[in-house]
């Protein structure tokens, strides 16, 4: 038998052995972490070819997504904020509301619900502004924004309640900054833009303008009058003092004094931290508290914001997405000096440097009791085409893959221990600072979520929530062409437990409340914070991955008004509701 013939005979045997080895060698780690289920949920994948861009900036900035239970039937519905195709500014592109059916499929109920606003859609905020138990909607537009009151019967009414904003609104968020029991509204505005402005990029070819070409716009703050109407308090609150090219906003106590602050991500300039002075006014302290720039002291093109306690020290940390060539920045809260940019030591290793990040969120996708990060990417300036981009001759230049990072709680690269001299130099920083400054480490697990990360597209908004009610967090993403993509979480090992906590105050979700779980082994902190990410609004219910912990000893809530209550423990793997006034104050 010749050598070749021998090999030919042996080949099937070898292949069989390899196949068996591969099959038996498969582990849970080989299963994709997320699967795209857009079609299975009833969404059409056939989107007519999106026209080439016309280089008008708003066409590459939208649009947002809201994931919320608008009809209070116990499952999450989706509001998609849409915008017209390039070159067709005046053709209406109504927003769409998709209602989740008991089967898990979605149907378009826009018309019946009366929420199909036809403005040039950008972002969305969701909140119960009248404390009547249902969720109202605020839509930002390039052009006048719109407020929709939820009638409680599955329909909405477009109303003028004093929250008019005619600038280019981007992200918006509700929060009770004055602790008077109702939700106020903060709207970020981007730039003073005129549609006919076209810029040139590489080699003088037309491209989208850098935002610095335009004057920054002033954000707006509206105080809820407690009667269903709002007053514009931008001037008296001090927000008008500094303008910025705002794209993202969160409302949460970031200074530890129990009062809600506003953190705004600005494009290409210092971010703003509006610190609540507790008298209805704010002062801007981002530089002083380490949230204006990156660790290099440089302003970045900030887009989306994620908030969560990534290092389990009971303090909210922040993650801000940025442009190509800039890292997405992880700001870790420090007891004594505000926030520290820990991006470089958190294991990202510049993986995100070549991409332009927009929507982002902390989520414990594997329910292992620490927060992971998902982010979606897509350029705003033309650059080399990446392999696999197939979204049209024009848009391929803007397409990028998404990324997924897993928190693996390995020790970070920080090894420095303070010298005696340094301890003396600032005892408070170094005696407490290091002990209470747990570090965090992430690994790039994008390859394990190919449906989410291998498509080369232009993505913008992202919202998070347990869409299929199976105990883990799923994702929905919007693209530059008004396309939605749904990603089902298939990650958590079966032995990992979870708990969903809905915190209620005054008949509504307690935005800004801090929820802490005490378990035998650890303390976990989460925040009622739907308004985060980029232009989007996620499920306000707080999700906790618990790892192998199956029993919660106690639940503590620090409510937005500063009061604290303790609630009794619960077994894991369920959804519970805690209401202010029903716990034990402490």
């Amino acid at each position: 038998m010749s050598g070749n013939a021998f090999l030919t005979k042996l080949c099937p045997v070898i292949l069989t052995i390899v196949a068996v080895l591969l099959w038996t060698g498969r582990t849970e780690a080989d299963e994709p972490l997320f699967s795209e289920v857009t079609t299975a949920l009833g969404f059409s994948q056939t989107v007519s070819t999106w026209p080439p861009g016309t280089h008008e900036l708003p066409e590459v900035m939208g649009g947002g997504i809201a994931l919320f239970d608008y009809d209070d039937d116990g499952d999450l519905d989706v509001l998609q904020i849409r915008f017209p195709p390039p070159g067709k500014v005046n053709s209406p592109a109504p927003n769409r509301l998709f209602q989740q059916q008991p089967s898990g499929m979605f149907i378009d109920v826009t018309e019946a619900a009366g929420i199909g606003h036809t403005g040039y859609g950008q972002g969305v905020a969701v909140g119960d502004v009248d404390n009547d138990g249902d969720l109202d909607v605020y839509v930002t537009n390039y052009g006048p924004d719109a407020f929709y009151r939820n009638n409680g019967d599955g329909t909405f009414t477009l109303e003028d309640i004093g929250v008019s904003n005619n600038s280019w609104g981007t992200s918006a968020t509700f929060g009770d900054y004055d602790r008077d029991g109702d939700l106020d509204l903060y709207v970020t505005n981007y730039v003073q833009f005129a549609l006919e402005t076209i810029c040139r990029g590489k080699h003088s070819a037309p491209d989208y303008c850098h935002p610095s070409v335009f004057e920054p716009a002033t954000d707006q703050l509206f105080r809820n009058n407690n009667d269903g109407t709002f007053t514009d308090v931008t001037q008296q609150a001090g927000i008008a003092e500094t303008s910025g090219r705002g794209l993202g906003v969160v409302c949460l106590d970031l200074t530890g004094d129990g009062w809600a602050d506003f953190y705004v991500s600005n494009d290409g300039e210092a971010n703003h931290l509006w610190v609540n002075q507790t008298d209805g006014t704010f002062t801007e302290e981002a530089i002083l508290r380490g949230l204006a720039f990156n660790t290099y002291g440089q302003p970045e093109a900030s887009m989306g914001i994620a908030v969560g306690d990534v290092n389990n020290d009971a303090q909210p940390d922040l993650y801000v997405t940025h442009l190509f060539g800039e890292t997405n920045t992880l700001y870790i809260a420090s007891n004594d000096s505000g926030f520290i940019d820990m991006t470089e030591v958190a294991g990202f290793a510049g993986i995100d440097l070549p991409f332009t990040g927009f929507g982002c969120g902390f989520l414990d996708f594997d329910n292992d009791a620490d927060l992971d990060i998902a982010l979606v990417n897509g350029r705003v300036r033309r650059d080399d085409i990446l392999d696999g981009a197939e979204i049209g001759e024009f848009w391929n230049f803007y397409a990028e893959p998404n990324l997924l990072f897993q928190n693996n709680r390995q020790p970070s690269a920080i090894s420095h221990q303070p010298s005696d001299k340094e301890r003396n130099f600032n005892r408070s920083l170094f005696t407490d600072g290091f002990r209470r400054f747990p570090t965090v480490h992430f690994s790039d697990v994008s390859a394990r979520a190919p449906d989410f990360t291998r498509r080369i597209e232009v993505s913008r908004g992202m919202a998070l929530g347990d869409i299929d009610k199976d105990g883990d967090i799923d994702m929905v993403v919007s693209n530059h062409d008004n396309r939605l993509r749904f990603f089902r979480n298939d990650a958590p090992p079966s032995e990992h437990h979870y708990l969903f906590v809905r915190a209620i105050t005054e008949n509504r979700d307690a935005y800004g409340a801090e929820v802490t779980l005490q378990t035998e082994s650890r303390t976990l902190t989460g925040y009622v914070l739907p308004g985060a990410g980029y232009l989007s609004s996620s499920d306000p219910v707080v999700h906790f991955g618990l790892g192998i912990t199956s029993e919660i000893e106690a639940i503590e809530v620090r409510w937005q008004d500063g009061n604290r209550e303790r609630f009794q423990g619960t077994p894991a793997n369920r959804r519970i509701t805690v209401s202010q006034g029903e716990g034990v104050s402490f």
Partner: protein
Amino acid sequence: MKTLSLLLLLLLINGLASAKGEVDIPQPADLGLVEEKRLLKAVETAQKAVRNSPDDAEVWGQLGHVYLSHRWEVPAIACYRRANTLAPDEFRWLYFLGRLTTRRDPVAAVKYLNRALTLNDAYAPAHLYLASALRVSGKFDKARQHLENAKGLQPDNPFSELWLGEIAFAQRQVELARTHLENALRLNPDQSEAHALMAQIATVLGDKETAKKHAQAARKPTRHNALSDPFWWDVLRAGVTAPLYAERGRRYMAKGNYVDAVAEFEVLISRTQKDIDVWLDYGVSLLHLERYNQARAALEHAQMLLGSDADVRKEKKPYEIAYLQAQTYNYIAQVYYETGQTDAAILTTQKAIQLFHNTVGKAQPVDKTRDSEYTAFFANVHANLAVVYEGIGQLDQAIAQYQKALELVPTKSALHRDIAGVYWKMRRYTEAEPHYKTAITNGATEVQAVYRLGLILLRKGDYEAAIAQFEKVIEIDEAHIRAYEAVGIAYEGLGDVSAAIGAFEQVLQLEPDSKNASEMLKKLRERK
């Protein structure tokens, strides 16, 4: 049509070459969008050279330069990689590979730059880029080592101290961070990155006032001093698009090489050129070369565009237009002054000042980040006008202009020195004295200013203070005979005859024929 033909030819040649399997040349994906013939030609020429000599690392490197200078980074990387394969021991290709991948693939950048430094560890920018890639990867200690190396090689490079401070702060070594950042601010007081971290450090230390001061400074964009990177010039030189000519021109200007600057700008100068900065820089370069007529023509063209060209005006905010117009008037005035047309110089400078008061000055709340630039510029314009008035003997007017300049930048020592000079001319010594003092306190070290202050003090009979000033003069200029004489007179005034004799003896040593010194010595010795 020509452009299209050229592009088709380029694509055809590449297609044929690939079909033959000759040379696989990396192509920019958006080459088809390029309309500039010069650029297409440059690409064609560089590609042709590669096709002719596919085993020559230099031609691959040159094609990489052409791509990189026109921001096609991905194909540039491919070219440098090929050059590196052909010439593995050539520092440049590894350096460019490392530099280009710092922001795309830091792990690869570390590999390339480490290898580059084994070939040439004396190239400071390579240490800096390596430090940058190491930082992004969280390898602080190694990054620190390369920053120290870069500092040793190029002590005034704008990044070593800053980044060392940033790394120290990231590692919570606050004291060390502060030291480095203070050094960084000494090199460039306007580095906003350093101010931002100093604000945080001051906050940590509870020093709210200092924190606020640094936070305010951090809001202004940094103008970094250029990093000396000779190999980068190779890339810049490969550029054939307008921004690259302009950049090269400005770099030549910064070096004081106006001949080459003019050569670069001239490529861009045509009736259709609407880039105001190009016209201004071209005009200023010509001014430096004393080609006054051409300078004036260029500057007047800029003025015309700013005043009436709809495209130019549409792209800029009103206060930006006004600021550019003011700059243009200022330089035109300088042309008038240099050519002896003082009346025209005065009128034109006054127009620039008017623009500031009517437009730019009022825009400062809108654009706070540039207020120091605006005020510095307009202080300069007032000072220029003062010089013109001084030149034609209108000294009161000159003083008025200097005072206006000082209202804008009260601590600028040169202005204090110059206004004192006018007072001196007018023999208004009492008014000159505080300005000379401020000038000297703020760093003016010109002998004339110090000497004159000494004389003013001598006139007042403040002999000891006068002697102190004259001694400073002698420290700077050991052969300053008049200073020794003045010291002698001051000692005489103090009644210290021996010291006075010593001073005049010094004068005689330096100027043996000095009648004044001989007479003074005779008189003093008689008194003794």
